[in-house]
């Protein structure tokens, strides 16, 4: 297979991995085996995968409350993620962070963040360090369109453009801030906002993993060359509730709207059809990926379920470095 073809297959597999991971999260959560909150990334997989495919392992990302996809796409281990989601000692954060705070220096993951817009400063700062230390690294700041409401995002974009920092702002516009449609919360033209700061900005179909990847590659390479920040506005949709418990959704969005995205714009189905049409993968290959990924995820869940909780005495550790 050509390098390109390998990339397309790898992106497919990654999207499947995220979806299977999230289905297991849903399952654990609804069976009351998982504490806290869980915000599923199902439907939005192409964004994390298309962007992270454009990154090096030592590039940085910041992530959100809906962060499992970013984490996995950046290379995290499902085993350690599930362990974290279950509050186990073996988890990425020794159980101290949970779903909304998974962080992993080994893959450049600066951490998921439960403050909407909380990653803006951090990603911009990591880019600042990367530039200052001349490491050639790039930082990607993932956030939902709801974060367009947070002033610190504009402050950060201004700094990034002023100082020509290698940071890409990736706005996942899934149309909803929790239970409120973005048209009720966002005046004017979304893309005009980063552009007002002079940032190279582009709107992309977030359900098309190849389009996402192409746009990401362009902005990442640009940033790496020292030409400054970029902004991606990615249209997408979350198939499920804002969090797992958000079941009755008709009061804020219609079943029909949901159905249209799920059947017409599913990133995995679209990419699969394309791979098939190009003859890059056949039914067997898809099946094999499904089986392999399912097995990996099941093993990860099993590992996590069996893993021990931290000893309560650990509560006082890691407060100070």
């Amino acid at each position, binding site marked *: 297979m050509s390098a390109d073809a390998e990339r397309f297959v790898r992106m497919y597999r990654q999207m499947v991995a995220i979806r299977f991971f999230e289905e297991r999260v849903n399952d654990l959560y609804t069976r009351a085996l998982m504490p806290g909150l869980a915000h599923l990334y199902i439907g939005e997989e192409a964004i994390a995968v298309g962007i992270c495919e454009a990154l090096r392992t030592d590039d940085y990302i910041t992530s959100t409350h809906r962060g499992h996809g970013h984490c996995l796409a950046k290379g995290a281990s499902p085993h350690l993620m599930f362990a974290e989601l279950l509050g186990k000692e073996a988890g990425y954060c020794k159980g101290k962070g*949970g779903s*909304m705070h998974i962080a992993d220096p080994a893959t450049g993951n600066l951490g998921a963040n439960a*403050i909407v817009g*909380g990653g803006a400063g951090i990603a911009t700062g990591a880019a600042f360090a990367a530039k200052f230390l001349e490491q050639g690294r790039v930082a990607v700041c993932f956030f939902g369109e709801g974060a367009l409401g*947070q002033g610190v995002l504009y402050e950060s974009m201004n700094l990034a453009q002023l100082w020509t920092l290698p940071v890409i702002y990736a706005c996942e516009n899934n149309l909803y*801030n929790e239970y409120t449609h973005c048209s009720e919360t*966002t005046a004017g033209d979304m893309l005009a906002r980063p552009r007002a700061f002079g940032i190279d900005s582009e709107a992309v179909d977030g359900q098309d993993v190849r389009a996402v990847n192409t746009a990401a590659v362009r902005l990442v390479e640009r940033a790496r060359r020292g030409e400054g920040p970029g902004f991606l506005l990615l249209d997408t949709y979350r198939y499920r509730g804002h969090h797992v418990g958000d079941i009755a959704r008709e009061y804020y969005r219609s079943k029909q709207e949901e159905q249209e995205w799920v059947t017409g714009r599913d990133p995995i189905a679209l990419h699969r059809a394309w791979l098939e049409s190009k003859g890059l993968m056949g039914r067997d290959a898809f099946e094999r990926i499904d089986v392999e990924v399912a097995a990996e995820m099941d093993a990860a869940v099993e590992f996590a379920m069996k893993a021990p909780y931290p*000893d309560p005495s*650990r509560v006082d550790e890691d407060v100070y470095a």
Partner: protein
Amino acid sequence: MPDMSFGDAIRMALAEEMRRDPRVVLLGEDVAEAGTTFKVLKGLVDEFGCTRVIDTPISEPGFTGLAVGAAMAGMRPVVDIMFGDFLALIMDQVVNQAAKIHYMSGGKWKVPMVVRATMGASRRSAAQHSQSLHAWPSHIPGLKVAMPSTPYDAKGLLKAAIRDDNPVIIFEDKISYTKVKGPVPEDDYVVPLGVADIKRQGRDITLVATSSMVQVALGAAAMLEEIGIDAEIVDPRTTWPLDEKTLIESARKTSRAMVIDEGYFRYGVTGEIASVIAEGAFYDLDGPVRRLGARHVPIPFSPVLEDVTVPTERDVFDLARTMCNK
């Protein structure tokens, strides 16, 4: 008078005040159709419409600042801060603006607004969604701070807060919304800000407890009773104004006092309250005023860790027992 949940009492207070005063509006994220993430405001938009129950962008500083100006210009806005942790985002608007405008203008402008913020851990929401940051506004002249512990107090304090001509921050414990139930009159009553309430009479030790910790103290008092210790539970209900007299009198009566609060222990509200008691009751005390608060750690996610972070009935029981030498 049927029992009502803490959350329903909040809703009742808001509905009553909105009926009474057309200038009262609610602002916050997902407050309208969703009725907030905790569903506490559910239904209010149906009665009052979306011009008075207003969904905002995720712009806590922006809509809090807007509320400050709206309050100055004749409204009575009530701002909803979904998680108390987000107070960190609005401190400038609350502290540098709302709290000071009356004073800085020589008494000419008023800022009659309410910030409703949640507080409380134990929901496995981790470090950024579990804090109880009421010590911060309590520190600031120009603010009032209410911390209801029962549905009765929740309704009465919130109504008092809305009618108050000053900025008032009211902290609502998330766990209490559904778990704490109690009698709530349909009447138009208020609980005045600055009046403590004795939630349990007792002779042997004073347990000063705020918000969520009142339930914990009540549980501990039941355990203490079994070993012959009769605890008095004093709920200040507002950290500012602070009803020093009631606190001091109780401590003088029992000769022992403990202060229990869910906020971080260090430099939290227990220090002030304990000092007030120590200064006012020193010569009647058998020993130092003792304090319990959240452990000096960010709130951890894992249940086994979170469960040792916030004071429990057992913690209160153990400490009270030691203090009473039993």
